[in-house]
């Protein structure tokens, strides 16, 4: 069997064995104790040639209903947005994707500068002065923010709105077990965080409060009220998870006094790809700059005074501080951060505002036609590009029917919010056309009855 990734020839092998002074490569493995040696052949599928394997995988891919062939109204944290062609052309350059973390700045200026630019873009969007090089995803980035707030305030209680993405809340719960944090969830009122309950729950043990803006149900949280609430609770930190596309139009969390802003840049140039890899971002204040998890890139100069970039403030990190590090994170999502940077550069300052506005306007149109189709809209507050509808049947069964018609329906809220049977979260992005929205309303009317 030939293996195209293995350049070893019989002649090379013999010469190398001679140099080492052994007869066979088996001798190189003789230090593995006999009783733990694996003496069988691994039971794996036979090697497949390139043509055959590509065909086999294409067949596997064809079993999935994809977002290109179907019209999707599903969002809930992962969105089907327009991806400019330039994005894939840039991230396909193998000087980027076959490199690793830029430990050697002299030959990694490309990646380092790209990250520095990404940090700048995130800082601009969130209004926060400091942003890191990226995190695994929005959910783990939020969990890291929660852990940071506890470490910083030396408090254990965290108030988390139930309008934060359910899976992010689940990740927070898991992360919280390490440092032993108490997670208190705050109920909702009309699809938004119940500020009265929040106010009652804050005490001198509260490390942080966590909200999502726009929230999981698409609604805009009462940010000013929360900000006011925190004015008398100076030590409690305000953590906000934000869809960065929304921040192209909406007031950035920094303006509401946020201490940490996190989220996912999947909306910019990263396909849904079944939930990952996406790209978390993490932005914060100057005060917390030296506590940030993950890699940070800073600007400096070389010996000749030429501008350049390096990994910096590494005293925070695991490879230096080991068990005293601010986080155990080692990698970042560099390639996806690059994809998002390219998408943000392509969309640009004015394009971003326009794109965010198109999302909002199409979502409002969809809301209106769905109402006309006899569907009840659950919440009437201000929203971004998602809204909740109440249906006459369980959302899962409606989605099955919609799929037959070539639609991927909205998110079934019953999974995460007991009692919300028949409630569906509908997302409308800029790529949905009026015709598709009209058709969706018609199908939903027919199925909903």
């Amino acid at each position, binding site marked *: 069997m030939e*293996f195209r*990734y293995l350049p*070893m020839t019989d002649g090379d092998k013999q010469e190398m064995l001679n140099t080492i002074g052994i007869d066979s*490569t088996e001798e*190189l493995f003789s230090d*593995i104790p006999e009783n733990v040696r694996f003496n069988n052949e691994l*039971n794996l599928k036979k090697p*497949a040639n*390139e043509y055959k*394997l590509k065909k*086999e*995988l294409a067949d596997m*891919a064809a079993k*999935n209903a994809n977002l290109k062939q179907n019209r999707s109204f599903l969002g809930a944290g992962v969105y089907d947005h*327009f991806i400019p062609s*330039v994005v894939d052309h*840039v991230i396909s350059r193998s*000087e980027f994707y076959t490199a*690793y*973390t*830029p430990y050697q700045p*002299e030959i990694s200026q490309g*990646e380092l500068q*790209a990250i520095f*630019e990404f940090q*700048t*873009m995130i800082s601009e969007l969130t209004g926060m002065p400091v942003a890191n090089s990226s995190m*695994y995803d929005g959910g*783990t980035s939020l969990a890291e923010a929660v852990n940071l707030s506890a470490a910083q305030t030396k408090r254990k209680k965290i108030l988390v709105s139930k309008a934060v993405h359910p899976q992010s809340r689940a990740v927070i719960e*898991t*992360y919280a077990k*390490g*440092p032993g944090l108490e997670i208190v969830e705050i109920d909702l009122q009309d699809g938004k965080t119940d500020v009265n309950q929040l106010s009652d729950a804050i005490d001198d043990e509260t490390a942080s409060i966590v909200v999502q803006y726009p929230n999981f149900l698409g609604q805009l949280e009462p940010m000013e009220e929360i900000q006011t609430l925190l004015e008398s609770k100076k030590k409690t930190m305000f953590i906000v998870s934000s869809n960065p596309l929304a921040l192209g*139009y909406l*007031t950035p969390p920094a303006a509401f006094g946020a201490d940490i802003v996190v989220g996912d840049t999947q909306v910019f140039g990263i396909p*849904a*790809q079944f939930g*990952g*890899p996406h790209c978390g971002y993490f932005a914060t204040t100057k005060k917390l700059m030296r506590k940030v998890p993950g890699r940070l890139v800073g*600007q*400096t100069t*070389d010996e*000749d005074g030429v*501008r350049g970039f*390096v990994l*910096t403030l590494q005293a925070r990190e695991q490879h230096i501080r080991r*068990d005293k590090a601010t986080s*155990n994170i080692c*990698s*970042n999502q560099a390639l996806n951060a690059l994809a998002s940077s390219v998408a943000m*550069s392509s969309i*640009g300052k004015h*394009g*971003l505002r*326009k794109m965010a*506005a198109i999302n909002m306007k199409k979502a409002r149109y969809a809301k209106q036609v769905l109402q006309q189709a006899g569907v009840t809209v659950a919440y009437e507050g*201000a929203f971004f590009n998602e809204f909740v509808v109440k249906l006459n049947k369980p959302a*899962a069964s409606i989605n*099955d029917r919609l799929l037959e018609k070539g639609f991927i329906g909205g998110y079934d809220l019953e999974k995460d919010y007991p009692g919300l049977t028949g409630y569906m979260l509908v997302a409308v992005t800029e790529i949905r*056309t009026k015709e598709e929205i009209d058709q969706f309303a018609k199908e939903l009317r027919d199925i909903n009855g």
Partner: protein
Amino acid sequence: MANQDFPLIFERSKLGRTSYSLPELDVPDVDLNAELGNKYIRTEAPELPEVSELDIMRHYTGLSNRNYGVDSGFYPLGSCTMKYNPKINEDVARMDGFSHIHPDQPEKSVQGAMEMMYDLQSALREITGMHEVSLQSAAGAHGEWTALMMIRAFHEANGDTERTKVIVPDSAHGTNPASATVAGFEAVTVKSNEKGLVDLEDLKRVVGEDTAALMLTNPNTLGLFETEIVEMAKIVHDAGGKLYYDGANLNAIMGYARPGDMGFDAVHLNLHKTFTGPHGGGGPGSGPVGVSAELQPFLPQPLLIKKEDQFVFDYDRPQSIGRVKPYYGNFGINLRAYTYIRTMGAEGLKKASEYAVLNANYMMRKLEKEYDLPFKQHCKHEFVLSGKHQKKLGVRTLDIAKRLLDYGYHPPTIYFPLNVEEALMVEPTETESKETLDGFIDTMLTIADEARNEPELVQDAPHQTIVKRMDETTAARKPILRYEANSE
């Protein structure tokens, strides 16, 4: 190439220039401002660049030319397994049916994706000898922490709440003690002996009733196989602790030995290393975890299982540690790893390990003539040299690394592991040819010569790169972490 500032994308920006081509607004316009009111409407637009499409391509092509990847040249970065990244992987990952599917679609509409995940889980179970695998963890460090959380949950389920310590060798990667801390444990160190292996006497000293787990990389970060692994497993298990396998170095032993057979209770794998991820300039990676039958109930939820002929996500897992990540892991990376495993099969993976180890030993024997080799036995897929001979001449390992840049190589990992003075950690991987290895060996020997005869040449390196050594001190003291339009 002239050494000069390369413009930032923001510095290429010009008011009125655009690169976007957005879908049009084909629905009736509405007044958003009237609805939202002032408080929610952003007053100042974020300063994203305004550039043309060609500006973008010139900019990022320029940046790519200022970067170095495996496709650019030899990248023997120890512990990172910088092997070739197959192109079919990239093609497959871009197929619509994989890249454009939503994680919340009805399960019946994503059976192909779930089948791939299930097959990958099965393959990784077989390769590691573990009972069950979850693909949810996003990267190596994330997998470490996930596994430790499961071990923690296991002890708690047994009412064993006093197990607060995780033992980590002094040669371990920094993520090991950091993950232990994040999982709520205290990290304690076990020493290495003169052979570079875990000192069994010291292990017996630190192990006890408070031991939750021992974290071990095998072969270890010195590239040496822990030959007393069976004894170590017994010591830790007898004390009631669990054995955790850091899969960073799995590339050395595929088809030769399996962590499950060595007595490990939990493992993580780095799919971006061993299984050609790729590395992406720092990520995304993927760090699946495998566990013994005993730890299986604690795996993250949901777990992908097969029920009759359907693939389903099983959420009914009462003892699960919960979610460690939204959705089901870094699917796109897992898909690339799957494609690689299907390309190689059992025979190919074993050959990969065989040649990775052969390449490393060949280089090691050639280089020990000039560089101190602290541990003399055969190595596995990587080896660690010490630059201490050169240090006596006033040339540091950092200088040697920088000099390698002049010769067009990515340097090895330096100053790691911490238990070797002036460490140079070399991992050639199996995808490099003998000619490439010989070229690098010759260069390393030349640099050793230079260190003796023209030390300044090495001390002042690099000379050929687009920038010289960077002022990292100022970068940390006066951090500039973003571009400011009016700062210069």
